[in-house]
């Protein structure tokens, strides 16, 4: 026997006294559980059976209203409106097909669509979630459903809150819109936000673009739950036979989201939008205070975000996506273009700071400049004659800046333009900001694999070649010129308020860097800024300024026009009429600047796409924004007429002196 069994066979018997305890435990457990089952199923069974058949507990979500968005003076920009929706609770439906038919007929939609919605929700949210069939019900819808509810169980009408945008198309890309969480987003969102304790369901609202997206966590409130007893058909029931519900019943109120106070001024916003509408313009514009507070933010053409609140139709969505004018794009930060002549003041600043030219140096500017084998043209066929740097800015001389570009070289241009923020994100809180591009020799070597060509210095100096930027970035750079050195971080949310309007957070203006800082890497002297500013003042107020048409009597604006070529043309085409070309071959027009010219309070950046000229296409928008600003914040200025009191001093060395620089 020992050859089959191990030697410790007897030892296993050591345990025998212990088994009694185990048998007892098993027996005892079976007994206790059986008694408990007896108690529940036999003694209380009838009562609980009744309870289970007549009553069950239904949890209904009470959606939290999103926070309200105000402008800087407390005017409502985005709010909520009450609405009604019809829902279907599949577990209470006796015959789904019939109910779908009836609902479809009452709401004017195919029954198959109702079935689709129900099946989709089951897949995503399980079988016990009520399914939203249609929201934003009309009075007729509500009446039809009320009648239908008598015959079909599981159909409910619920109150909802609809996100409303009283400005409609105006600033739609800026404010963004809300949409329903889709099936595809659901797992991603839940993973992303699980740490924050937020759990999404399909159909929940979420900010999907602009401010609504960027500040979604603040704006979204906490949904409430109402717990009610309902019978097996989903109707609310009363009575609580065993006191089982106790604390369970009742309502947890929804907590509304936080309110935002923006830096936006509604009047300036409206003025900007009106001027886009009147000129039938395409493009983007922003205005900001010199400390970085954005006052207006417009992108055109636009769309009505209210359409998204009620569930956008696939048709409209397709139209928006395929529109060649890109209405969904937030143009002030998402469109990339070469800055054209608006880049010249930045080069002027670099030239003066590097002493390759002085304010009094007179430079000969013929109609074209030969560089290597290529002829670089001025936009004025005859050239500008002998001019100083302020005149070069005023008249937008290409040849003058070709020469500056040649003298500076790319490294120095990069140094100052990069310092002014070209090719860097401004850091504004809106999503999707593109950085633009300020090229440099190492950059070209690395990305394209070619050496920097000297001819490219000339292109960069007039804002062409690889340079790419957007209206916000340019406004920040010009603002730094206007306030003599400070690059600010633009921002749009001034304060975050709790839903009972206590201040939770306040955003302070931030200076990112100061180009005038004598100990910094740029240490640009005040006189340099003053000279460039004088040039910018002349653009609007000088005798030959390119934006003279947008002059205002009561305030001196300063700025610079520019055009950005959509495609390159041969020499003779350059002088051809831009307006004669097909729309999508026309130049973009720029106007960037600030006001008042000597001591700025507001900076602006306007891009008018396919408008041919900055002066006619973009400058009127800037003029409208500045006018709205003055009318609101300095109404006393409206009486002034600066043209009489302040004679334009002109360029410091208007007469050509002896030190004309030749070719």
């Amino acid at each position, binding site marked *: 026997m020992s050859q089959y069994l191990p030697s410790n066979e007897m030892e*296993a018997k050591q345990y025998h006294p212990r088994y009694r305890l185990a048998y007892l435990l098993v027996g005892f457990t079976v007994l206790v559980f059986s008694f408990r089952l007896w108690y529940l199923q*036999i003694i209380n069974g009838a009562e609980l059976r009744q*309870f289970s058949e007549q009553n069950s507990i239904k949890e209904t979500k009470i959606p939290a209203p999103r926070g309200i968005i105000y402008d800087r003076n407390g005017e409502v920009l985005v709010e909520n409106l009450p609405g009604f929706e019809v829902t279907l609770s599949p577990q209470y439906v006796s015959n789904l097909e019939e109910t779908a038919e009836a609902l479809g007929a009452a709401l004017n939609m195919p029954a198959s669509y109702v079935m689709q919605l129900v099946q989709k929700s*089951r897949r995503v949210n399980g079988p016990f979630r009520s399914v939203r069939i249609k929201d934003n019900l009309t009075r007729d819808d509500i009446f039809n459903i009320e009648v239908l509810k008598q015959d079909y169980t599981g159909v409910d009408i619920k109150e909802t809150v609809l996100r409303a945008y009283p400005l409609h198309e105006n600033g739609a890309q800026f404010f963004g819109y809300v949409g329903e969480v889709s099936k595809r987003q659901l797992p991603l969102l839940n993973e992303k936000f699980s740490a924050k304790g937020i759990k999404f369901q399909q159909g929940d609202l979420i900010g999907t673009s602009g401010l609504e997206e960027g500040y979604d966590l603040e704006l979204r409130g906490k949904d409430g739950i109402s717990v009610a007893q309902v019978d097996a058909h989903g109707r609310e029931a009363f009575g609580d036979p065993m006191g089982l519900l106790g604390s369970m019943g009742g309502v947890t109120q929804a907590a509304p989201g936080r309110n935002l106070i923006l830096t936006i001024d509604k009047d300036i916003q409206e003025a900007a939008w009106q001027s886009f509408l009147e000129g039938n313009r395409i493009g983007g514009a922003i205005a900001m205070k010199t400390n970085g507070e954005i006052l207006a933010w417009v992108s055109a053409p636009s769309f009505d975000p209210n359409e998204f609140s009620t569930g956008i139709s696939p048709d409209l969505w397709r139209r928006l996506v395929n529109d060649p004018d890109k209405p969904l794009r937030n143009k002030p930060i998402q469109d990339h273009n070469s800055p054209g002549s608006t880049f010249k003041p930045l080069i002027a600043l670099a030239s003066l700071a590097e002493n390759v030219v002085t304010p009094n140096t007179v430079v000969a500017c013929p109609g074209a400049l030969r560089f290597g084998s290529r002829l670089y043209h001025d936009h004025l066929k005859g050239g500008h004659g002998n001019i100083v740097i302020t005149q070069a800015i005023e008249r937008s001389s290409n040849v003058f800046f070709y020469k500056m570009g040649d003298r500076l070289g790319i490294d120095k241009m990069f140094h100052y333009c990069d310092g002014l923020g070209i090719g860097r994100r401004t850091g504004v809180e809106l999503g999707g900001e593109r950085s633009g591009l300020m090229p440099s020799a190492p950059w070209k070597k690395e990305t394209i694999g070619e050496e920097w060509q000297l001819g490219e210095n000339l292109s960069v100096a007039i804002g062409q070649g690889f340079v790419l930027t957007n209206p916000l970035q340019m406004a920040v750079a010009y603002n730094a010129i206007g306030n003599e050195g400070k690059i600010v971080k633009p921002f749009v949310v001034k304060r975050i308020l709790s839903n009972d309007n206590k201040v939770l957070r306040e955003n302070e203006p931030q200076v990112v860097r100061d180009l005038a800082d004598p100990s910094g890497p740029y240490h640009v002297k005040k006189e340099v800024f003053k000279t460039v500013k004088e040039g910018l003042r002349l653009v609007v107020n000088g005798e030959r300024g390119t934006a003279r048409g947008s002059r205002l009597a009561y305030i001196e604006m300063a700025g610079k026009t520019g055009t950005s070529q959509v495609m390159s043309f041969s020499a003779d085409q350059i002088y051809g009429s831009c307006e004669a070309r097909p729309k999508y071959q026309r130049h973009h027009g720029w106007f960037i600047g600030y006001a008042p010219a000597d001591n700025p309070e507001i900076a602006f950046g306007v891009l008018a796409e396919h408008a041919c000229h900055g002066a006619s296409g973009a400058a009127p928008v800037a003029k409208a924004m500045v006018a709205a600003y003055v009318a609101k914040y300095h109404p006393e200025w409206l009486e002034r007429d600066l043209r009489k009191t302040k004679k334009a001093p002109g360029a410091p060395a208007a007469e050509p002196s002896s030190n004309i620089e030749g070719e």
Partner: protein
Amino acid sequence: MNGFQIEERGFFKKLDWNFIIPLLLLQFIGIINLYSATHGVAEIETDRLFLSQIFWLVNGWMVFIFMTFVDYQFFLRAAYLIYALNALALIAVMFFGKVALGAQRWLDLGFFSYQPSESMKLCIIMVLAKVLSQKSYPDGMGVKDLAFPLLILIGVPFFITAEQPDLGTAMMILIIGSSILFFVRIRRSILIAMTALLVVGATGAWFFGLRDYQKHRIYTFIDPNQDPRGKGYNSIQSKIAVGSGQMLGKGFRKGTQSQLEFLPERHTDFIYSVLSEEFGFFGSFFTIATFGLLYLAMLRIAQQARDKAGALLTIGVMASLFWHMFINIGMVIGLLPIVGIPLPLLSYGGSNMLTTMAALGLVSSVSYRKYLF
């Protein structure tokens, strides 16, 4: 009356049918019940759950038969290695694991998500059976005897699992391990000291050390996925479901609580309430009694084991199955607080089915090589 007879008996005769019949019965009940739980009137596309459970059941039986044929001594010899590999997998979960339901418990193996803490229970049983059967403790285990098995073998996986955080499984690891130690026998003085320490410490902490919100936090720590409202909701709904079954139940797939608005976990942790509602006291009692029979059969197998290791192995597996059932059904019928512990052989779940069948396969292996008196 000797080993020659054992040799001559055929495979089917050598199987312990007292053990296998209750097992088959429970699995049959489980499949019928799962079909009902996953095929509610309002449900579409839940065949996947049901079919995958059948798939795991078939695989489970293959594992069971394999384990039966292999001498359990082989597994005991490799016990340290298996234990170490599983502990590594547990640690791997901490770094590469999939986060689901607020805890990191699963390793994604492509075709299915494997939960190492589930098989860790079995590894602890094996390694304890090996270690404790090597010595005999006529006066019970003293402090020195307890140190290694309790602090290292049980303690390490306990803390790793608690860290995930999966306090439910960690607690099961502790309970199963302690059951084996207790079975082997612990010195009375130590038992008394430990019990006293536990009672005094816990009551002291509960009444003086912890504030209300902290106690609350302990509840939510045990199962972070359920807020108090949700917990109360589940408990109440479960009691209503069980009670409304009355004597004979509402009938197959006729349970209003389970088929209509009921718990989301009805195919896993609350599977027993579906059974109670649809098959009444009759079905519920029958199931508990069958579980009881299965345990009795296992106790008998342990008593007849040819060596101490086999006995301890069987006791460990039995303890595991028993405590799972004890806590799960206790929770469903409202005797214990809500803890996320599955009901073996009845709940839906691949990892659980495979480990349970592997464990029962070990018991079967012990029974196959039993000593006949």
